[in-house]
């Protein structure tokens, strides 16, 4: 057996996959369209999520990641490497840890490409079932984040393209600024219902539209 056991979590046959929000009920007043909404909430469900571990100082590791992902490896907290077209992003999580998000179903292939390109001391783990992505957008999305987290979201500290891992209400989230008024929140599956309801509650006063 090889050093590491890889695992393709996806069934070959058609199977109904469920987002963590499948059980969530919306209990706040929502708008019927995005028109005039202060906040729009949209889930990007079932994407591929991977954890990459390795040595940033290792040139071969950096080069290998770039080959496998087609994106440079961010070497410090903040700027997220992203190819919006392909739906691939890499975010610094820690001096030896990165979060990779890829389109649905591509996690296994991404892991395989990384394993092919990398050698030495590194690790790749799939966590696609463990988290989901919520997008918050609109003129009041910033206010909703300020009501929910103690991080400084002002453009001087949080320009477009930045991503951080921080507290959100009484849970945690990876928060990324995708546009001036557009944010991505990557939240853990088991906390997803709590955070979803928290965010909708915080959004209600601004007029919230939930996109399906």
């Amino acid at each position, binding site marked *: 057996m090889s050093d590491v056991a890889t695992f393709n979590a996806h069934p070959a046959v058609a199977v109904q996959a469920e987002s963590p929000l499948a059980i969530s009920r919306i209990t706040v007043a929502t708008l019927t369209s995005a028109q005039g909404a202060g906040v729009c909430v949209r889930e990007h469900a079932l994407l591929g999520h991977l954890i990459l571990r390795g040595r940033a100082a290792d040139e071969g590791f950096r080069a290998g990641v770039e080959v496998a992902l087609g994106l440079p490896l961010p070497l410090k*907290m903040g700027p997220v490497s992203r190819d919006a077209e392909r739906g691939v992003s890499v975010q610094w999580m*820690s001096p030896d*840890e990165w979060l990779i998000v890829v389109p649905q179903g591509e996690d296994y292939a991404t892991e395989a490409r990384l394993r092919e390109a990398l050698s030495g001391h590194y690790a790749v783990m799939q966590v696609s079932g463990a988290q989901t992505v919520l997008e918050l957008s609109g003129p009041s999305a910033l206010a909703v984040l300020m009501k929910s987290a103690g991080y400084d979201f002002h453009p001087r500290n949080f320009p477009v393209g930045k991503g951080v*891992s921080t*507290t959100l209400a009484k849970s*945690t989230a990876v928060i990324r600024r995708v546009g001036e008024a557009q944010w991505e929140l990557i939240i853990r599956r088991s906390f997803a219902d709590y955070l979803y309801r928290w965010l909708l509650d915080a959004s209600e006063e601004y007029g919230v539209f939930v996109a399906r």
Partner: protein
Amino acid sequence: MLHIYCPHCDEHREEEEFRSKGEAHIARPPEPESASDEDWGNYLFFRKNPRGLHHEQWFHAVGCRKFFNVTRDTVSYEILETYKPGQQPVVTAESRNGSASDKGAAK
């Protein structure tokens, strides 16, 4: 609510992202089985509780999940420096010798 600079993330973050892990620089004796009961007891159970300058270990639980050290004044709660594991503090009780808040520091 302290505002703590994480030397790994290179940013100040709110205290709620961190966990305090007690006194820093507690090294595990390298030869545990030949350590005396007393030495092992000291390693396990005895900690400083100074009034004034203290070196503490903190964990950036919600951020990078890395440990680091903090030199903090336990009276004013002022944080004088943070540094990575394996590094030594620059600010010490000796380097601050004579400052009022170190007086009465307990062993």
